[in-house]
């Protein structure tokens, strides 16, 4: 090991350090993917409410089957309850990425997150 290190000249160490730093910085820079900023609630495709993802709050929206409850928390949002029969949008849990979307189709309600820089066109599970 020592014999190998002896092959390095002073400038080499500097170049390696700068290169390592550049690589280290590139990971979070390129892989951060942006943060969600707003939650958008739609009924029948029309926006009925929009909230910044800063303060926690609940919002109740009425659809053809009944009331869907949306919960907002700092940096994330979810469908807390929904009258739909299969509960897919509720089981999806917290949405945390820009353009993630939970669709409660039976009740015509959707919850999506928007961010300044979206890393995906859409995300669903």
């Amino acid at each position, binding site marked *: 090991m020592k014999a190998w290190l002896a092959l*390095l000249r002073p400038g080499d160490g500097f170049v*390696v350090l700068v290169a390592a730093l550049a690589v280290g910085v590139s990971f979070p820079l390129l892989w951060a993917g942006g943060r969600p900023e707003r939650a958008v609630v739609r009924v029948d495709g029309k926006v009925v409410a929009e909230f910044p993802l800063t303060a926690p709050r609940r919002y109740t929206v009425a659809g053809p089957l009944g009331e869907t409850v949306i919960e907002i928390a700092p940096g994330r949002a979810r469908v807390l309850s929904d009258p739909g029969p299969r509960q897919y949008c509720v089981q999806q849990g917290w949405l945390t990425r820009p353009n993630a979307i939970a669709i409660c189709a039976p009740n015509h309600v959707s919850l999506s997150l928007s961010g300044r820089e979206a890393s995906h066109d859409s995300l669903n599970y």
Partner: protein
Amino acid sequence: MTASTIELAVTPDDRRIARHAAAAIALAVAEAALPSPLPGVKPGLANIVVLIVLWRHGWRDAAWVSLLRVVAGSLLIGQFLAPGFFLALTGALASLAALALAVRLPRRWFGAVTASVLAAFAHIGGQLLLARLWLVPHDGVFLLAPVFGLSALVFGIVNGLVAAKLLNEDD
């Protein structure tokens, strides 16, 4: 009828370049057999030869060896004129440009490791640029940049150290 022969004059320069290119090609072909986690992530052992040639015989020889390796290596692997060939060629040209700069740095301070690391980064930089412009016209390819950067860093250091050691032993 007289037999006509075409004789190509071979200079000592040609022989030296051919010998080094043969070593580089052998390393490139051997390396092609290694499995790679991601296309483009490979050690680039042939660059050790290029570095040594650069140090001993100058940039012109290094350019010959590097480009002969790309052409002959791709012929042997069956990649000639395939996308991989153009990626390799772009990488080789970019790293030769970097080496042209690196060889002008003061030798007292900067050794083969600097040249190797600079060339490795130029190599992936050129390849990513070509991939973005031609093969994958989407900014998504740059998401691979950190991975390629890491591999360039690791293999750049290792190849540079090996070249430095081999150069050291000769002195």
